[in-house]
C-alpha cells in the first residue's frame, strides 16, 4: 500500500476528486495547507504597513491505495490538477505499512 499525497491549487479539488472517483477510488482525505515555492505570493498593505504573503492557499489530498493503483492514480491526479502555470503543486508517494478500517477492523487493501 502507498499513500499518494498531492498538493494542488484549491480550485482544482473538484476535478481531482472526480478523476480519482473515475478510477474507482472512493475515499480520500483533504486538508487546507499553505504552500511556499516558486509561485510568487502577493502583497497586502494596511495603511502604512506592507506585508508580503509568501504562503499561498493550497489543498492537500491524501489517498491511501493498493500498490497496483499507484501509477494510474498519480497520473490521474497530475492530469486533473495541471494548469501549466507555476504553483500547480506536487505529488508525493509514501510507503504505508498498514491500514485499518475503524468500523470493521478490516486491514490492508480491503480497508481503503
Amino acid at each position: 500500500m502507498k499513500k499518494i499525497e498531492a498538493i494542488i491549487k484549491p480550485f482544482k479539488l473538484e476535478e481531482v476528486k472526480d478523476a480519482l472517483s473515475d478510477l474507482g477510488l472512493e475515499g480520500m482525505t483533504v486538508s487546507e495547507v499553505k504552500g511556499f515555492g516558486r509561485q510568487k505570493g502577493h502583497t497586502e498593505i494596511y495603511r502604512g504597513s506592507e506585508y508580503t504573503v509568501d504562503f499561498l492557499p493550497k489543498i492537500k489530498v491524501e489517498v491511501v491505495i493498493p500498490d497496483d493503483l499507484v501509477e494510474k492514480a498519480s497520473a490521474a491526479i497530475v492530469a486533473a490538477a495541471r494548469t501549466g502555470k507555476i504553483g500547480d503543486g506536487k505529488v508525493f508517494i509514501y510507503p504505508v505499512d498498514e491500514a485499518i478500517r475503524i468500523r470493521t477492523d478490516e486491514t490492508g487493501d480491503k480497508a481503503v
Partner: protein
Amino acid sequence: MVGVRLVLLLIAVISASLLCTSSVSAQAAAPTPPAATLEQRVTDLEQYFQNASVGGPTGTTWTSKIAGVPGPGDNAWLIVASALVLFMTLPGLGLFYGGLVRQKNVLSVLAQCLSIAGLVIIIWWAVGYSLAFGTSFTADRTHPTLLGSILGGTDYFFLKGITGAPNTDYSYWVSQNIFSMFQLMFAIITPALIVGAVAERMKFSAVLLFVTLWMFIVYLPMAHMVWGITGMMNGVWNATASIKAIDFAGGTVVHMSSGWSALILCMMLGKRLGFGKEHMAPHSMVLCMVGTGMLWVGWYGFNAGSALAADGIAANAFVTTTLAAGVASFVWAMLEYIIRKKPSVLGFCSGAVAGLVVITPACGFVTPNSAVIIGILAGVIPFIFVMKLKGIFGYDDALDTFGVHAVGGTLGALVTGIFASVDANANLATNLKDIVGKTLWLEQLKAIGVTLMLSIVGTIIIASIVKAVIGLRASPEVETEGLDLAEHGEEGYIMDHRS
C-alpha cells in the same frame, strides 16, 4: 491588586453619595416674577421653535407656564443622540479597533472598551459631571477664578439636583439629566480612543488605572475649559473666557486630547514584540468596516447632537458631517488608487473616520461648502501622516490613534477658526462677532497649545505613575500568547470541528 482597590473605591464613593444627597442645601428663593399674560404664554410657546428662553429674554421677566419642562422634540433628539454616541463605543469603536488587531487580541480591545464604559459611568455619576459642568468653583461669573475656569464645581456631585428640568446654562429645552448623559457618552469614548495606540501590549490593569487618572487630570479639565459655562476656552458662551476658542463637538476635548495622549503613551510603552518583522495585519477587515459604519452613524449623535436641540444648526451639522466624511473617505481611497493601484476598504474607513474627526469641532459652525474643503484636507493630511511620516518616526501607534485623531483633531481645531461663519451659526455673533472670520484662528491656536500641553504633560505624569505602581506592559509571554487568553481567559473565536 488594582481590581480590589477599585471595588473598594466604589463602595466608598457610594457611601459618600448617600451622605451627600441627604444633605440637600436649601436654595435661596429668588423673588417670583408675575404670571405670564396670554401673549407671554404664546411667546413662550414660540420660543420653543426658536430654541430660546421662556419667561422673557433672561427667563425672569414673567413666570412661564412651561418653565422647568423640556421641549419634547429637542429632548427626543438628545435622548437618541446620547444612545447613538454610546453606540459609537459599544460596539462601534470596539469593532473598528477590534477588527484591526490580530485575532489573539481582539477580546482585549473589547474588554478595554467595556471596562472604560463602566469606569467612566461611575466617575461621571460621582464627580465627573459636576467637575466638568458644575459652576460652584466660580462664585461670581463676572469675576472668573483660575480654579473655576479649569474645573466646574462640586454642586452636581452624585448628580445632585439633576432632573428633567433644563439647565439653561447649556440648553433651554433639553432636560439636564439627558444633557448629563449625552456628555457622559463623550467622556466614555474619549479615553477609549487611546486604546488604539497601545493595543496588543498594554496590561489591562494598567489601562484601568491610566484611564482613571487621565479622566481627572486631562479629560475633566478639558471638558470644563471648552464647554463648561465658566470654562476659560468657551468662547461661544462664556463672555469672560480668556481664550475665545470654539469647538462644536470635541476637536480639542475629544480627539486632540486622546490622540496626543495616545502618542505619548505608546512611546512610553514601547513597540509591540516583533513590530516591523512579524505580520500584524488586521484580523478582520469586515469587523473594522462594520465598526466604521457604526461610528459614522453614531457620529450624527455626536455632532448634530452637540447643537443640543433639533434645530437648523443640528441639521446643518448633519450636512457638514456627511459631506466631510464622504469626501474624506473617497479622497483617501482615491489617493491609494493613484499611488498603489489598490483602493482598500481600510482606506475608505480611515478616510471616513478622518473626515469625521476633522469636521467635529467645525460641524455646527461652518457651511456645507466649507465642509467639502475640510473633507478634502481630512482625506489628504492624515493620509500623508499615517502612510509616510509614521514610518519615518518609527513609533508604534498600533491602530493610528495619533495619525487620525491627534492629527485630525488638531487640523480640525485650526480650520474651524478659519471657516467658522455667522451665516452657519448665529450664536457666533453673540460673544465672538469681532473675531469670527478674522483672528479666531489665533484663539484656536491658543486652545490647541493648551490642549497639547495638558495632554502631553498629563500623560507623561500619569503613565510614569502607572509604570511605577503596577507597570504598563504585559509580559512578553502574555503578549506572545495573546492578551485574550492570558488576561481575560477567553478566546475570540472557537471555530474548530470539535465544538
